């Protein structure tokens, strides 16, 4: 037998063994896929969860719903179907060209009947803008820039990142302790308490203190990115910040002025970023016209 033939046979034998082992592993694994074992695997995996990144899409959705309810317990809704529909269209346009176009329950935008300049993004895609903020917008590009900033917070999961780590670890432990499908009343009570803690952490950041400054700068970068990808001029954001900077004295201490870094600081960073871009989408008269139709008076 030549050395080459011997090597070929050796390789063939090796491969056959690998295949035999893989097939037997496959069969063994199939045997292992019983309901009981899946439950056990689920339990082990959920115990191992410990950071915001381990929060599932469905969990984020339910956290977001309750954070949205907390926001709506403080602010009145502007019940104007036409305006809310237009804001939803602009919001969905920028969300479609974001890093996270698909989200468990979809994106939803709602206008709040508040004079202060403010916008809030709860996890799970529940986004709010005040009438005070809308009054600062002079065209669709500016509105799109603000909504893209909020979509940026959702896409980057800034809300979930504001949950205290210790609280999250504790909540995951509670959730993962039992393999049974449903909570007992006692378990439900403990998990609900943990859930309240999670909501408190997020609402505290979102409504009271504001996110970490670096998250705001990040959301501005994402606003420029998503806006440009959608075809909006990124100057919508710099124009909006310029307007806020000019009127900063009037609203200081409330809304965005309280929870966001100074508009001047943000403006400088945004202008630098836009300045480094080779081609920019241009403003379009068509979009200005439809914006004005929704903001008469």
């Amino acid at each position: 037998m030549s050395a080459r033939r011997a090597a070929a046979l050796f390789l063939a034998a090796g491969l056959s063994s690998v295949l035999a082992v893989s097939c037997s592993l496959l069969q063994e694994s199939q045997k292992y896929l019983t309901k009981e074992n899946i439950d056990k695997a689920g339990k082990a995996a959920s115990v191992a969860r410990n950071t915001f990144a381990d929060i599932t899409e469905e969990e984020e959705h339910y956290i977001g719903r309750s954070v949205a309810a907390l926001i709506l317990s403080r602010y009145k809704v502007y019940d104007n179907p036409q305006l809310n529909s237009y804001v939803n269209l602009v919001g969905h346009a920028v969300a479609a060209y974001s890093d996270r176009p698909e989200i468990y329950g979809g994106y939803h935008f709602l206008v709040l009947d508040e004079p202060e300049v403010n916008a809030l993004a709860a996890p799970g895609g529940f986004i709010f803008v005040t009438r005070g903020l809308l009054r600062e917008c002079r065209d669709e590009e500016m509105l799109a820039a603000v909504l893209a900033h909020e979509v940026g917070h959702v896409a980057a999961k800034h809300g979930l990142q504001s949950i205290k780590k210790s609280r999250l670890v504790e909540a995951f432990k509670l959730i993962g302790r039992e393999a049974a499908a449903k909570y007992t009343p006692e378990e439900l009570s403990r998990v609900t308490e943990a859930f309240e803690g999670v909501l408190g952490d997020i609402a505290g950041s979102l409504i009271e203190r504001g996110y970490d400054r670096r998250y705001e700068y990040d959301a501005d970068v994402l606003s420029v990115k998503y806006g440009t990808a959608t075809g909006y001029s990124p100057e919508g954001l710099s124009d909006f910040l310029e307007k806020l900077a000019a009127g900063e004295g009037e609203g200081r201490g409330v809304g965005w002025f309280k929870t966001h870094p100074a508009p001047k600081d943000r403006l400088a960073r945004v202008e630098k970023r836009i300045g480094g871009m080779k081609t920019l989408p241009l403003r379009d008269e068509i979009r200005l016209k439809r914006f004005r139709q929704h903001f008469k008076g």
Partner: protein
Amino acid sequence: MKNKTAAFILGGVLLAAALFAAETYIVKVRTTALRSGPKFFASQVLSLNAGEALLLLKKEEDWLQVKTPAGKVGWIHLSAVEPRKVDILAWDTTARKQATGSEVALAAKGFGRPGAKGFNKNVEDGYKTRNKNISFVWVDKMSLLSVNRSQLETFLKQGRLGEFGGAR
């Protein structure tokens, strides 16, 4: 003999590669669409729900070409799915009788099956019972404020945005 050996080796390599390289993805959003091309405004092949398993065929930037267990092929955005490499094991009919691919995937995180644990509808109901002053009426109304693909496409076209875009 030489040719037979070579064919055997090649066959073995291909089969081993197929076994180890196959990647399964699980739909992680409540509902989404399998599309005919790698873009949002491509036509819909079929509708997909959370937990459905998909076999990866190829990747193109943020889009994945996938195959459903029923053999339908289409494209899905990366943000709608999460990878589950182990699910090749659940692709077989025998295994599916014991547990669906989605059950395996969701169980890996300890959630997802109806009534399974996590921050879910049960917990929201528990929260509502303890906090009767917090109203969910507008949260539910807000959840109905949605935009379908056709409305969005019209809006983008009218505004010369996205892939229907204007001057740069």
